[in-house]
C-alpha cells in the first residue's frame, strides 16, 4: 500500500503541477497584473535551459560555463532569417537549433581533448571570443543589435504562428509558448536519459577510462551531450529574442543565461530530470521578489536584494549540495500517508 502510493505520487505531483502551471496565468489575466505572468515566463525559460544544461553538466559531468553562446546563436539566427528573409520564427527556431548544434559540434570537438577544470575554462574562453564577435560583426549589426519589427493586429493563431504576442496578451502568450517548449524539452531529455546516450554520458562522467574500455568513444559522446545542451539553449534564445523584440550582443551573451540555469540545476538537483525545474521555481521568484521588495524604497540601489539572494543560494548549496530533489521526499510522503491513516484509525476507535 505504502509502496504503491510511493510510486504513484510522482505522477500525481506531475499532474497537479501541469494543471496549476496551465491555470496560473488566467486569474492574473483577469486582474490585469501581468507582471507575475512575466515572472512565470522567466521561471519556465530558465527551467528549460537548466534541463538542457543538465545533459552536459549533470549526466555527462562536463562543466560547461558558456552555453549562453548557443543561446545567442539561436537568437541571432532566427532574428536574421526573420528580418532579412521573412522566415517564420518557428522555422527560424529550427534553423537556430541546427546552427547551435553545428557550431557547438565544431567548436567542442577540439575542446574535448581537455578534461575537468581545463574543459570548463575552455568553454569560458569560447564565450570571451564570442563577445567581441557579437559586438563588432557588421552582418549582425554589431553592438547596435537587431530589432525585430513588431507585428500587430493578428488573431490568436496569427500570434502563435508569428511568435509575437502584443499588448495585454503578450505575457500570457509567451508564458504558454515557454510552457510548451519546457514540456517538449523535458520529454526529449527524458528519452535521452533513458536511452543508450544517457547510459554512455553517465559512464563517461563516472570514469572516462573505464567507459573507453567498454567501447565508448568518450570525445564523440561529450560532443553529442554538449550539442543537445546547445540545441535547448538555441531554442531558448529564439524565444527570448522574439519576446524582447530585439537581439543585442550584451543581452543574449549575458552571463545570467548560464549562471541562472546552472544554479537552478544545482539547487534543484544536478543529474535529475526535474531538478532544474524545481530550482528555477525556487530561485527566479526569489530574485524577482528580492528586487521588487529590497530593491525599492529606502534601500534601493545598494544591491541589498542581490546580497540576500546570494546568501539564500549559498545556504541551499551548503545545506544540501546534491540538490533539493535529493531529499527523501518519497519517504516523507509515505510517512505522511501512514500518519494520516493511523490518525483515522485512532479517530474511529
Amino acid at each position: 500500500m505504502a509502496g504503491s502510493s510511493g510510486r504513484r505520487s510522482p505522477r500525481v505531483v506531475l499532474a497537479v503541477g501541469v494543471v496549476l502551471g496551465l491555470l496560473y496565468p488566467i486569474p492574473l489575466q483577469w486582474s490585469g497584473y501581468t507582471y507575475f505572468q512575466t515572472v512565470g515566463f522567466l521561471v519556465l525559460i530558465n527551467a528549460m535551459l537548466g534541463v538542457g544544461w543538465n545533459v552536459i553538466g549533470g549526466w555527462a559531468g562536463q562543466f560547461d560555463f558558456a552555453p549562453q553562446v548557443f543561446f545567442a546563436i539561436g537568437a541571432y539566427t532566427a532574428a536574421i532569417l526573420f528580418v532579412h528573409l521573412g522566415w517564420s520564427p518557428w522555422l527560424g527556431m529550427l534553423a537556430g537549433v541546427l546552427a547551435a548544434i553545428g557550431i557547438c559540434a565544431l567548436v567542442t570537438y577540439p575542446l574535448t581533448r581537455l578534461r575537468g577544470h581545463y574543459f570548463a575554462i575552455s568553454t569560458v574562453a569560447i564565450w570571451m571570443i564570442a563577445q567581441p564577435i557579437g559586438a563588432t560583426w557588421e552582418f549582425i549589426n554589431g553592438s547596435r543589435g537587431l530589432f525585430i519589427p513588431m507585428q500587430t493586429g493578428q488573431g490568436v493563431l496569427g500570434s502563435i504562428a508569428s511568435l509575437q504576442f502584443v499588448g495585454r496578451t503578450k505575457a500570457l502568450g509567451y508564458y504558454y509558448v515557454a510552457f510548451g517548449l519546457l514540456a517538449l524539452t523535458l520529454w526529449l531529455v527524458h528519452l535521452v536519459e533513458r536511452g543508450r546516450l544517457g547510459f554512455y554520458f553517465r559512464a563517461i562522467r563516472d570514469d572516462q577510462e573505464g567507459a573507453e574500455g567498454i567501447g565508448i568513444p568518450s570525445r564523440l559522446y561529450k560532443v553529442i551531450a554538449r550539442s543537445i545542451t546547445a540545441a535547448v539553449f538555441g531554442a531558448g534564445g529564439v524565444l527570448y529574442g522574439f519576446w524582447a523584440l530585439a537581439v543585442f550582443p550584451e543581452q543574449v551573451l549575458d552571463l545570467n543565461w548560464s549562471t541562472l540555469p546552472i544554479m537552478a540545476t544545482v539547487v534543484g538537483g544536478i543529474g535529475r530530470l526535474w531538478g532544474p525545474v524545481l530550482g528555477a521555481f525556487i530561485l527566479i521568484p526569489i530574485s524577482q521578489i528580492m528586487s521588487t521588495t529590497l530593491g525599492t524604497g529606502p534601500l534601493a540601489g545598494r544591491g541589498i536584494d542581490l546580497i540576500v539572494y546570494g546568501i539564500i543560494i549559498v545556504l541551499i548549496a551548503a545545506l544540501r549540495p546534491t540538490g533539493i530533489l535529493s531529499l527523501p521526499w518519497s519517504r516523507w510522503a509515505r510517512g505522511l500517508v501512514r500518519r494520516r491513516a493511523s490518525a483515522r484509525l485512532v479517530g474511529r476507535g
Partner: protein
Amino acid sequence: MATLLEVRSVTKRFGGLVANKEVSLAISAGEIVGLIGPNGAGKTTLFNCVTGYTHADAGRIVFAGADITRARPERVSGLGIARTWQLVRTFGRMTVLENVVCGALKRHARVGEARARALRLLEFTGLASREDVVAANLTLADKKRLEIARALATEPRLLLLDEAMSGLTPAETAAAVELVRRIHGELGLALCVVEHVMEVVMPLSQRVVVLDDGEKIAEGPPAEVVRNDAVIKAYLGEHYRGRR
C-alpha cells in the same frame, strides 16, 4: 589453436625509462596465460599498449588479424578485447545493473536487450542480489567482480585481468579464482592474468610469461617457470626453490 593476440617485440619508453623492451607474446583462443613479474616490470604498461591506452614506440600488436598497434581503446574493445584495472574503474554513481548495461549496449543498442543480457551476466558472476546497489557502495571484491561482469558484457574473445585478486581476503580470492575458471570453461574465453599471488596464478595458468625490468625473461608451463633460475632470482626469491 589459432593465435588470437600477437605482441611482436613491443618497446615502450616513458622518457628515459624503458617500460617494455622488445616484448613478444602470443595468446591462443581459449588459453589462460599468466603474466607475472615484480612491481615495475612493465605488466600494466603491456596491458595499456594492447588495449590502446598508450601506444608502443616500436613493434606491432595484432589481434585476430587486425593491427591494433595504434588503435584507440574503444576500437580495441569493439574488436573483442576487454580488460579490468588494478585500481577499479567501476561507474561509482550508477547501480550494479546500470554498470553492466553500459557494457552490453555496445553489442545490443536497445536498452531493453542490453538489460536482459546484463541480468544474465549478473547471474553468472553472482552479483544478482546486488543489482540495485550503487557501485561506489560495494566491497572491493564485489567491485572487482562487477568490473569483470561489465567487461564480459562487451562480449570479448580475450579478457585481460590486471590483478583481479589483489587486496582480497583468502575466501574472496578463492571465489574469484572460481569465477575465472568458469569464464574460461563455460564461456570459452582466452584470458591473460596479471597476478602477484603465486598460489593463484600458477594452478590457473596453462602458460606463464615472466617480465622483469621491461624484458621477458622466461616463458613456459608453470612447473618449468618456477624452476627457472632467472625467475627465482628476479621475482620468486630463493625460498621458492624447493617448494614444488
